[in-house]
């Protein structure tokens, strides 16, 4: 009789477990939501997937943990590398997983332009509110007043609202969930891997760093999940986002869902125009 194993294990490299993450780190929960979605979509193995990450705790999610091709790239450059992968082999499902610092600070330009191009990528941003790997400095997503290693007197730089920003780009899909919204998050993964499987898809997961946020606040990971259940309010329309945020809550939901052709499709028709022009 085989001993029952956690459902995520079939997508993981057994030989590198346990994970390198701190006890309670929500990175594993984000993985669970993604793998549950894959399992429900009937994805047996990940041979048609390529995971690309940058540098940071969350960038260790795919590499080497996930049993798939993965590129652990430079800090901030995951989206650019992923773009190259996708264009050179459009058959592959390319998924970027990274941190708020990686994707929005040092790599912010690539994120914006991949969204502008509606590049056929799924980008998962683990918003843990700090630079965790380098021991808890200010991130562009750190809330006001927060104490970090580089804002010891409380952050005074207003944070960036990444998902809201991306709504106004060509991105096909923009969603934000808290790590406590497991089922909704899983549902977004499913949408972004099936229904809306083209163009730029962005899922932000609010998943505060256990070591540099949650423990600093004197809380346990379980308490934080319970707190997030209250703090994260689902909006049905983007017009409600500001209202929710004014009340000091975190607005979550699917903010945008379209089925415009992605970059690959647009490039193909551009290339056929190029061929026609050269035949004349």
């Amino acid at each position, binding site marked *: 009789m085989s001993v*029952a194993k*956690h459902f995520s*294990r079939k997508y993981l490299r057994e030989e590198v477990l346990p994970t390198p993450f701190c006890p309670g780190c929500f990175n594993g929960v984000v993985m669970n939501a993604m793998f549950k979605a894959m399992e429900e979509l009937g994805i047996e193995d990940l041979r048609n997937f390529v995971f690309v990450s940058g540098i940071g705790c969350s960038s260790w999610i795919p590499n080497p943990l996930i049993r798939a091709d993965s590129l652990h790239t430079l800090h901030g450059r995951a989206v650019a590398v992923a773009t190259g992968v996708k264009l050179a082999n459009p058959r592959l499902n390319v998924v970027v997983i990274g941190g708020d610092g990686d994707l929005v600070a040092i790599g912010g330009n690539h994120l914006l332009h991949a969204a502008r191009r509606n590049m056929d990528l799924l980008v998962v941003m683990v918003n843990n509110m700090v630079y965790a790997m380098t021991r808890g400095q200010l991130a562009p997503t750190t809330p006001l007043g927060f104490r970090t290693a580089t804002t010891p007197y409380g952050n005074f730089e207003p944070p960036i609202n990444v998902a809201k920003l991306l709504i106004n780009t060509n991105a096909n899909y923009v969603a934000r969930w808290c790590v406590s919204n497991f089922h909704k998050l899983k549902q977004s993964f499913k949408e972004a891997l099936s229904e809306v499987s083209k163009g730029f898809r962005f899922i932000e997961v609010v998943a505060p760093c256990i070591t540099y946020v949650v423990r600093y606040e004197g809380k346990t990971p*379980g308490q934080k999940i319970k707190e997030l259940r209250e703090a994260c309010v689902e909006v049905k329309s983007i017009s409600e986002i500001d209202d929710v945020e004014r009340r000091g809550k975190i607005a979550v939901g699917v903010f945008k869902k379209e089925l415009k052709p992605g970059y690959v499709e647009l490039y193909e028709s551009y290339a056929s125009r190029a061929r026609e022009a050269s035949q004349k």
Partner: protein
Amino acid sequence: MGCSIVVDSRLCKGCGICVELCPARALELSKELSPSGYRNPVQTGKCVGCRTCEMFCPDFAIAVVCNGKGSA
């Protein structure tokens, strides 16, 4: 009949998420430490098979088995 949890003590880091989130209050952390030095969850009450612990286990260490079957 019924459900129970299987814990992989090689992976569990004793974060306690499962214990705190279990709606049935079926779990507790063990008194003694695992070989890797953590307190692992043990089942002390009736499990209703909601799989919350499984979904939120960040270390893929807990599996819920109902009627001899793991998660689909």
